[in-house]
């Protein structure tokens, strides 16, 4: 018998997930979702921002990027639920494939999806006047923070999907936090736009905090505290969600 190799198993399974993403249209969807959402917010709100003297493309793009990373998380949940419910996860556990390989393969497909969303978001942002004003360092910082956020979300959703009882319900359930954290954030309108009782949440929730950091990096006005808070949120979520995903992937049943 030919020896199995975890590296080529990971490549084969990642290729399978990416191919599935292409066939389902999900990768096209991933690229265009941020474009659509950007246009939906930008068109009605840019005049208001103009009168306040704000470049709205510069203001809005970070939350559009983060929203598309949340959508990547939702797709990750559906991907993992499909494996769990369709029997693929069970079958792979009965093969000489290390327990973590299928999950890492799904994660690499999620990361590719996140990169496409980031490209779609930045492209539409550029058309509307968004610019990176800092150097290469801040561009890299922007990309890394956005992708780490997507990875953290994908780990959480992958864990949830692996114990799901219904693929569609998993996706729909995850739509609620996606809407809540995108809409009730300071990424679309500043905190003053919310009723007073909602302002503390809008200002301090993770999407707002991470959007602040992205906006600061793009505009080259960021300070260390903003970056630290954003990274603390992301790394905290990464630790919690990744350990849940690792635990569920390796659990003895």
């Amino acid at each position, binding site marked *: 018998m030919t020896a199995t190799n975890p590296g080529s198993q990971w490549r084969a399974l990642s290729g399978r997930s990416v191919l*599935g993403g292409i066939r389902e249209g999900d990768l096209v969807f991933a690229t265009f979702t941020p474009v659509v959402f950007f246009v939906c917010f930008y068109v009605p709100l840019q005049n208001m921002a103009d009168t306040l003297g704000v470049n709205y493309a510069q203001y809005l793009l970070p939350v559009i990027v983060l929203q598309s990373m949340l959508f990547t998380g939702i797709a990750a949940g559906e991907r993992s639920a499909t494996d769990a419910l369709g029997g693929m996860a069970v079958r792979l556990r009965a093969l000489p494939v290390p327990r973590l390989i299928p999950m890492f393969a799904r994660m690499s497909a999620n990361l590719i999806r996140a990169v496409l969303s980031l490209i779609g978001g930045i492209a539409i942002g550029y058309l509307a006047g968004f610019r990176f004003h800092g150097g290469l360092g801040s561009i890299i910082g922007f990309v890394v923070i956005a992708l780490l956020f997507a990875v953290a979300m994908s780990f959480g959703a992958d864990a949830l999907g692996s114990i799901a009882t219904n693929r569609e319900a998993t996706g729909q359930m995850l739509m609620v936090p996606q809407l809540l954290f995108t809409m009730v954030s300071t990424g679309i309108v500043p905190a003053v736009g919310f009723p007073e009782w909602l302002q503390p949440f809008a200002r301090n929730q993770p999407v707002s905090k991470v959007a602040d950091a992205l906006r600061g990096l793009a505009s080259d006005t960021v300070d260390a505290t903003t970056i630290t808070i954003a990274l603390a949120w992301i790394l905290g979520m990464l630790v919690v969600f990744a350990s849940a995903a690792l635990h569920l992937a390796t659990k003895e049943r």
Partner: protein
Amino acid sequence: MTGTPAVLVEGLHKRFGDHVALSGVDFEVAPGTVLGLLGPNGAGKTTTVSILATLRRPDAGRALVAGHNVVDDAAAVRRSIMLTGQYAAVDELLTGRENLELFARLLGARKQEAAKRAADLLDEFDLADAADRRVGTYSGGMRRRIDIACGLVIKPAVVFLDEPTTGLDPRSRQHVWSLIGRLRDEGVTVLLTTQYLEEADVLSDRIVVIDHGAVVAEGTSAQLKQRTGGTHCEVVPVEPRLVPRAHELLADLHPSPLTPGADRFALPAPGGVATLGTVMSRLDAAGIDLADVALRRPSLDDVFLSLTGHAASGAEQSA
């Protein structure tokens, strides 16, 4: 039995919360034979297969597959087996060929070998025409075939088929049956779970009957049938009104009591064909035409009923 068994199960226990799924299951499967694990829904068939395929850990007991312990040496077991579940566990978005190549590569084949093996299996499983269509568009029977084929990209020592024909139409079922026969011909050990008595009867070299998580009987199909009594002869006159008259003529052969209104009756046939001859000549002499007369051996349905106290199909409905 010669040499070490391909599958050895000793005192297997497994519970899920309060529910006892297995309460001490023992059996073995000789290399190159087909064992039918027969039982109603909820009897513990799938739990047994899950433990043997290293998907679940037993609470107690020991199981060896191809000589490897399923708990201590799960990796070696996984290299020796193939598992097909009750549903087709393949990727619906990939084509049949892509699925086969995926599994070949997961099992260590290089790209070219994987492509070659996939092409061979597509021919062998009569799926060449559908090779480049997504599995999502396949019929139930085709899916089951591609599912089984995916497990054979590298020849396994032991194949677990968990209810391989559940939900299939008769033609597809026939196709899966012939596949199982072919596996045995190639020397692969097969453990097949089924709730279809007919399936266990046709395919298995030996049958293990389980109910409520324990083995209630085992043996060849013939041995199990023997346990419920011998062959009998069934008599069906053309004209139902002549049933009592025929019954009377054969009274010395100890026919079973007549059910009022029945169009037939049965009598023990220890002499086999000789009994059949006696029946036919006597009724012929009396001018009673027969619609049917035949020797009947007890079916596995009868066996199941007598072993478990309930019918296999009835158990399925009430589960």
